[in-house]
Each structure stands twice: as structure tokens, then as C-alpha cells.
């Protein structure tokens, strides 16, 4: 299943936040969306998953989601969005219950995704007992449980410290290498974008428009720390973004 954005534009009251975004998200690839703060990248992600409606243009789903897919468009949120009153396993079974998956069948899925995210021994823990990195792994496990066609990741690592971020990036690369998934990954962190993205979409400041799409051909598993090619890509992205970011930073906020 692929996603096509066709001429997406949006305004909040008089403020235009997005203008004429057309983009294809091909199957099995991670598309990163970067841009200065306030450029509408998180809004764009909410359009893709149907949590908000764009004023102009449309989001199209091309092809059918694979069989066994419970929730084709599945989010991973910056603030984890775990229910604090449910255990790790309970948070995952939450999204299965509405599909009538209970008991042994649910247990099997929960055990499977906990093993994939290395959380097996934390199944009974409450979110308050977990570090930020662990919470986000639970959220990733929850997303995997519904077998999504496209993962919509909204700055998933932005609330974490830089060491945890590195560890989780490795985990995401591992997950993708074992079983490639389609993802839209919104971030303001260029290092994350060049590490995880097959394509990096650079948005301009408000109103957000596509400035450039940077392709990175190197396989994810080969993208290690301090790689010269990646550094060059990251530098290129930063030159694209620097002036936009500076101008965006100096803008008055009209909200």
C-alpha cells in the first residue's frame, strides 16, 4: 500500500500553514519530513493519518493494505501517549480489544511484539516505572501489534536524551532491516533524518512548501556513526534549512 499526497494546503484562520504539498510515499521506504519549527510538518502527518482534514487537496491510499493489517495508518507520538493506568501489556492489548482479539490470540501478538522490541520482562510494569526510551519502545510495540501498512512517526525521539535517541535509532534500523516497513517520519533533527530516511523531504518555513527532496541510497544497515557521505548529506540539508530556520525563528507567533 502506498500513500499519495495531492496538492495539500491548509490554513488556520488567516494563517496559511501548508501550501501545495504533493508527495508519494512508496512502499517499504522511510520518508523523513524535516523543516523549521512551525512549518506544518506535524499537521501534515495528522492529515496523512486522517486525524485532521486539510482545507485543500487530498490524501490518497493506493492499493489495499496487506492481509492481517488491523490499522493501516498507525501513529507513534512524540509524547508516547501510553495509558498510565495500564501495564505495558495492557497498553498493547488495548488496541487489539476493539478488533475482537482477546485471550490467547491477543497474548500471542503481545508476546511477539514485546520480544521484537526487547520488552518481554517489562510486560507487567506500569508506564510510570519506565524511562522515556522504554516508553517509546512500548509505543513502537503497540504500533507493531496492529500490523500497520504505514507507520506515521511524529518526532518519536524528540522527547528523549541523545544517548537514548541513538539506541532507539539502532532499534528502528534493526526492525526495518528484519522486516521493511513503510513510514513517514517527521523530525526536526537532521541526524535522525539522514540515519533513517530513504528520502528526506525538506519543507520551507510557513507556509510549508516542499523545497527539495533528497534521496539517500545507502542501505540503512550501513549508515553508521560518522559516515562521511551521510555527513555531507546532513550538511547539504542544513544549508537548505539554515536560512529558513533563522527566518522562522525571528517570526512573531500569531496564534
Amino acid at each position, binding site marked *: 500500500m502506498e500513500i499519495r499526497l495531492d496538492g495539500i494546503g491548509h490554513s488556520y484562520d488567516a494563517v496559511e500553514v501548508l501550501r501545495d504539498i504533493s508527495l508519494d510515499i512508496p512502499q517499504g521506504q522511510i520518508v523523513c519530513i524535516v523543516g523549521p519549527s512551525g512549518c506544518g510538518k506535524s499537521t501534515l502527518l495528522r492529515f496523512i*493519518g486522517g*486525524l485532521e482534514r486539510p482545507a485543500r487537496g487530498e490524501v490518497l491510499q493506493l492499493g489495499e493494505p496487506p492481509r492481517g493489517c*488491523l*490499522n493501516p*495508518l*498507525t*501513529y507513534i*507520538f512524540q*509524547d508516547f*501517549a501510553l*495509558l*498510565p*493506568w*495500564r501495564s505495558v501489556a495492557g497498553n498493547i492489548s*488495548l*488496541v487489539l*480489544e*476493539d478488533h475482537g482479539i482477546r485471550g490467547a490470540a491477543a497474548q500471542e501478538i503481545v508476546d511477539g511484539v514485546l520480544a521484537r522490541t526487547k520488552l518481554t520482562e517489562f510486560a507487567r510494569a*506500569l*508506564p*510510570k516505572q519506565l524511562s522515556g526510551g522504554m516508553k517509546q519502545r512500548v509505543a513502537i510495540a*503497540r504500533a507493531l501489534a*496492529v500490523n500497520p501498512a504505514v507507520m506515521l512517526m511524529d518526532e518519536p525521539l524528540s522527547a528523549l536524551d541523545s544517548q537514548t535517541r541513538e539506541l532507539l535509532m539502532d532499534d528502528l534500523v534493526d526492525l526495518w532491516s528484519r522486516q521493511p516497513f513503510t513510514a513517514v517520519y517527521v523530525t526536526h533533527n537532521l541526524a535522525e533524518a539522514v540515519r533513517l530516511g530513504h528520502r528526506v523531504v525538506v519543507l520551507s518555513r510557513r507556509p510549508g512548501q516542499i523545497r527539495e527532496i533528497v534521496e539517500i541510497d545507502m542501505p540503512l544497515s550501513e549508515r553508521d556513526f560518522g559516515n562521511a557521505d551521510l555527513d555531507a548529506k546532513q550538511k547539504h540539508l542544513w544549508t537548505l534549512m539554515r536560512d529558513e530556520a533563522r527566518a522562522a525563528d525571528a517570526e512573531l507567533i500569531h496564534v
Partner: protein
Amino acid sequence: MSDTAPSLKSRKVAFRGGGFAPRMHRWVGVMVFAALILIAEWGTRAGWISALTLPKPSDVLATFIGLYESGQLFKHLGPSLSRLIVGAAIGTSLGISVGVLIGLFSYIRSGLVPLVAAIFPIPKIALLPLFVIWFGIGEGSKYALIAFGTFTPTVVATYGAVDNVDRSLIRMGQSFGLSWWSIVRKIVLPGAMPGILSGLRISLAIAIILLVAAEMLGAEYGIGAYILEAGSLYDLERLFVGVAILSILGVAVSALIGAVERRVLDWRT
């Protein structure tokens, strides 16, 4: 920095970060009660508090023991507790339901919030004659008074609590395709529970206050009836026994809610 000149005077940095973090010490509360009772006992024995001002605490205790031994205590406590439980159960369950509806639906909110604001400040005791006409002089009017009195504060606390449920959790539920009812049951209600329980503390205290009012009319037995009878006879010992029972009831209800909070809300940090 290491080669500080010896002539410089060294001084310890003064601590200024304390306070503003009150904590509960259980025994201090007990001590305050004990001290007040001891002062009253001392004053009434020594004579600088006249017997008309305050009864002797030891006499109050003796009256209480007498009440217990005669079996009258449970004759009064039983009906009162059943009125309290039935009335508060009706009032709070209706209040929670209406509060959740106000918290979820725009039209219900627009329609009912002004109505609740209008009936909240009415002293429910003033409506007692009306309830007697509607529900009769028996138990019905007593249940209705307590239910009505607990209803409004519960509504206000509940819809405030629903408003405070983390929107990102609701958004998460929607993004995973959870049904409306699942979101209400598994996200909104548990998320609102802390606010609902702290609202219950207030509602149940109001229920105890209204118990006395409810027993003003046509109640033979009940703590309220007992207090009113003692009051009309200026029997201060019995009056204080009744008041003490209400206080103990209040402390018990508060402790009960505390226990429920510890059980149900152990997920809170």
C-alpha cells in the same frame, strides 16, 4: 581557581531552598484533637468554662457509652447510614453520568452548564417542603434531598475532570480506530477518575450535612433526629455525642475515599 589567595574569607553558601512542600504527619492531627479535648476537659473541671458553655468531654463520652450500651446507637445509626448510602449513591451516580455527558457533548454542555450553575447555589434545605410534597414524608423525600445535594457538586467535578483528560490519549485512541464507547470507557473515564474521586470527597461531606436536614421532618430515628431532639431540649451532652458521630462519619468517609484512591489511582506518579 585552585590557587585561591589565602587572604580571601571563605563562607558557607546559605541554604535557601526549603519549605513550600507540606507533608502529612498522621500523629499531629491526632494530637490536635487530643489537645483540644484535654483543654475542654480541664476548663470545665476547673470551672473557667461554665457548664452552659460547653459540656464536659468526659460526660459526653459517658453519654455516648450509655447510648451504645442501650442499643440506641445502632437504632439511630442504621437508618442514617441507609439514607446516606441510598441518597448519595443516587446523587453521585446521576452526577457522574450527567458530568460525563456534559464533558463529551457540545449541546448537552451548552444546555446544562447554566442550569447546573443555577441550581448549585440553592440551599437544598429550602426545598425540603417541596420534596415532602413530591416524595412523601417517608424515606423518599430524605433520599431526594441527599441525592439532589450531592448531584450538583458531582456534576461540576466530573465535567471538569473530563475536560482535563489528556487530549493526546484520546487522539491516540482515535488513531488506533477505537470505537467511541471504547474511548469513553477505557480512556476518558479512567483519566477523569482522580478528579471524580476528589469531587466525591466534597459531595459526600455535603451528604452528611444534608442528613441532619433530611431528618428534621418526620424521622423518629437517625443521627439527625437525635441531634435535633437534643438541641431542642438544650441537652448539650447528647448534642455533642451526635455531632461527634457525624464528625467520625466524615473522617471515615474521607478515609474510605483515600483507600479507594490508593487502590484505583496507584498509576499516578
